């Protein structure tokens, strides 16, 4: 397929902008651009077809089953998109007078209220634009806390070796040394290792529960207690919240600060890699350090009136104001965050409500266990216990037997139109495939996928070479990633 630069021809274009109705002022002299950028010259028709072609070579949740572990590829509801497209949300400037922004402020106010209830936190900022961004923000809160206490011995963050790479990377960005503790055989936190690792130099622990192998760590209260006793704080990586929302709250497990991935748990679309939203919630004692501004009810405003009209007795304030925390760490992004993404998440939370949230997580866990049980006859599961919303398979045994790897299985799935599970993560399982079906898949979809996995297994046993060369039916075969990294070509160049 041609690149956009290889299409069109000089002189073609669209007639988009009105004529200029004021005297023309041109830029001459030292600030004038010398040569124009080499952008395409295409008609609207050609542009439309180009992107339609690109869309056909892409694959989204809307196209098929997408069981990517730790990504929560659940269905993206269309009503969320409608809400985000409302003119009242789209067309407001972030720096308008507060009285003209009461709608946007109400979105942030309600989203904070509901998500704090779901997570067991006291306050939340929506400024972080992604999960990793949220981790960075949450760790900055921890840093500010210790700095404020004038405790400069706290230089280390503890992270289990099963953690997602963003955890240690975020800790490094905050100037912390990362202490990685090995997990137990069963994938959970090794309490002895944790006890040995904590001390006066512990700033905090980063953890997710369920953990990255999909298991609920039953010792969670003891884990957070150990860290608190040593004077550290506990950070919850909310990437796996889809397993427990409505059932368990991070705040009740002893966590002091959490981040959420609205583009995972709260159904906002992934967009090919963003924009996401990574709000950070915290307990009251960390509130003074929150970044950005929060929306508060105007204390001088009139008494709250019931505005929802749904009889739920949900009272919202008459007027909102912005407040900045007294010892705020500053801003992690300009303005208030990825607002339209928050709109989508709020729409989702209001659609599901109390029962729907619990139903979502319950079925996420059910679907994962269902697939795990039905694949256990031929595939090795890394852990045998009841899993939560995702489970990990290991292809190490098969690799030794006939050389078929996790990569081969993953590539074979592509030929069946199923997006492969997460490969080679977490690092503590060799030849890992992490499967997260989510709650929005039907039993038939799961059964079909299970059949496909079985078929691939049979192929692996009978003719493994077929899998080594998979995929066969996709638009391209396996790309040469080695040359791509050795001799990077990161842009199109015109032949001179």
């Amino acid at each position, binding site marked *: 397929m041609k690149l956009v630069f290889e299409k069109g021809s000089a002189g073609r*274009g669209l007639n988009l902008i009105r004529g200029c109705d004021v005297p023309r002022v041109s830029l001459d002299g030292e600030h004038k651009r010398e040569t124009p950028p080499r952008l395409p010259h295409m008609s609207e028709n050609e542009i439309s077809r180009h992107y339609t072609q690109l869309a056909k070579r*892409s694959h989204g949740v809307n196209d098929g089953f997408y069981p990517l572990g730790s990504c929560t590829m659940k269905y993206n509801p269309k009503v969320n998109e409608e809400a985000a497209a409302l003119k009242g949300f789209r067309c407001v400037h972030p720096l308008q007078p507060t009285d003209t*922004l009461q709608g946007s402020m109400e979105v942030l106010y309600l989203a904070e209220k509901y998500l704090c209830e779901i997570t067991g936190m006291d306050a939340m900022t929506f400024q972080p634009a992604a999960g990793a961004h949220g981790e960075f923000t949450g760790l900055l809160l921890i840093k500010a806390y210790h700095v404020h206490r004038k405790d400069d011995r706290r230089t280390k963050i503890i992270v289990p070796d099963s953690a997602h790479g963003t955890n240690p990377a975020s800790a490094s960005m905050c100037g912390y040394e990362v202490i990685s503790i090995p997990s137990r055989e069963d994938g959970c936190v090794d309490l002895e290792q944790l006890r040995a690792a904590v001390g006066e130099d512990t700033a905090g622990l980063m953890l997710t529960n369920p953990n990255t192998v999909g298991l609920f760590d039953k010792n969670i209260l003891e884990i957070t207690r150990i860290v608190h006793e040593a004077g550290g704080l506990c950070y919850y990586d909310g990437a796996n919240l889809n397993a427990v929302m409505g059932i368990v709250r991070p705040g009740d497990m002893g966590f002091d600060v959490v981040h959420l991935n609205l583009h995972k748990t709260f159904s906002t679309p992934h967009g090919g890699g963003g*924009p996401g939203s990574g709000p950070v919630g915290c307990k009251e004692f960390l509130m003074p350090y929150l970044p950005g501004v929060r929306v508060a009810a105007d204390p001088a405003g009139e008494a709250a009136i019931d505005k929802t009209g749904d009889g739920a007795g949900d009272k919202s304030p008459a007027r909102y104001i912005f407040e900045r925390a007294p010892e705020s*760490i500053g801003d992690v992004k*300009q303005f208030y965050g990825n607002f339209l993404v928050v709109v989508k998440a709020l*729409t989702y939370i*209001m659609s*599901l409500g109390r029962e729907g949230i619990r139903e979502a997580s319950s079925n996420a866990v059910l679907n994962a266990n269902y697939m795990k049980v039905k694949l256990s006859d031929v595939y090795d599961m890394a852990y045998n216990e009841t899993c939560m919303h995702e489970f990990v398979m290991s292809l190490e045994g098969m690799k030794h037997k006939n050389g078929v790897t996790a990569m081969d299985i993953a590539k074979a799935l592509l030929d069946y139109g199923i997006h492969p599970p997460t490969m080679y993560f977490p690092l503590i399982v060799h030849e890992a495939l992490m499967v997260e079906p989510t709650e929005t898949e039907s039993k038939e979809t799961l059964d079909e996928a299970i059949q496909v996995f079985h078929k691939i297994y049979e192929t692996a046993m009978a003719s493994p070479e077929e899998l080594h060369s998979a995929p066969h039916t996709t638009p391209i075969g396996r790309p040469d990633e080695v040359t791509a990294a050795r001799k990077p070509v990161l*842009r199109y160049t015109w032949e001179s």
Partner: protein
Amino acid sequence: MGTYVPDTKQEQQEMLREIGFNSFDEMFSHIPEEVKLKDGLDLMPGLSEQAVIGKMEDIAGKNVVFRHIFRGAGAYNHYIPAIVSSVISKEEFVTAYTPYQAEISQGILQSIFEYQTMICELTGMDASNASIYDGATAAAEAAAMCRDRKRSTVYVSGAANPGVIEVIKTYCFGSNTKVIIVPEECGVTDADALARMMKEDAQAACFYVQQPNYFGNMEDGDVLGRIVHDAGAKYIMGCNPMALGIMKTPAGYGADIAVGDGQPLGMPLAFGGPYLGFMAATAAMARKLPGRIVGETKDDKGERAFVLTLQAREQHIRREKASSNVCSNQAWCALTASVYMTAMGADGMAEAAAQCMSKAHYLRDVLKEAGLEPKHDREFFHEFVTVSPEGRCTDSNHILRALEEYGILGGLKLSDREILWCATEVNTREEMDETASIVRNVLHGECRHKEVCGS
């Protein structure tokens, strides 16, 4: 209650039984009782689709959408072509994940490769990443790129957007890096001060300047660049992609890294997000770029193919040794920008930029006639600062309140007497004449907004 769980309660029960459980509670029985929610969440019941969109419409209705907008300061009101909205709403682009599986993601990967190329063309740089959260975080990440063992102090122009400066400072709090603000003088960076500061600091890692700057003025980009390079530091230029339709590129000014916010390229104002941070660098610094990057290669049959490359820089491989933790980017916004740039083409971008500049100059002239003096006497792109005359009822608040009454969002109040205005290709001559007329009445007529001055 809205639900996206396809299976009925009965089907769910069957599945539970198939795997050996009689109920959901039994499936969750391994979770300790002490942490479980006893009475469920204290939340409202779920709403039908009709109810929820009705509620969101009510909330959106509480915002005021202004008829005419003359405010910029980091968020700009531009025309969004219909083809942009059409393309980006395609389900495949909206609901796809990060293109880790290259074989089925060539569409996404190619669109990012095209985006990277266009950013390079716009900025004159050699390599671009696949984007980051916004212009401010791009500036902060660029400063981090320039850090090495011997140099770490970050210098920032005092004439840059305060919101961007704040984010750079916050990131530097994280990395224990010193940030020093270079003072502004007469609406631009004080070059003499910069030269002095850089000369005295062997640890200076980089200098960030915004071009055009926060006040709309064009900086002496060449002069500043020479000062920075003479001191052995790196030159980071924050730019406005719209201005680059007619303005000299960061590469032309000698920048090592070009960053900025791509929001003007097809993204709505949207109360501040999602926007688009772009980062582009010289070949020498390309491997230091954070976040995802798409590269071209061949597949096993020799066909051209695109992949995420140079991944060993990133967090999922380097973990605590990664220079940045970036995982998600703003892919869908980058796509938006690509479609916009394709639809506009170089001619369209140049025309839009020329109109922004022309309209802003017209606005400045008619506001001056109405009594608002321009504060600076420098070349400017599409933003400028005015100073209102002394008088209780001629201050910024009165002016802006008067405009608000007519559904016009005036410039941003910088102080009691100063306002930062912006005009784009979207503003018409009539709007600007109307605005000037209202301003004239405020400055020369009777005070009609006693609630502002309390008189």
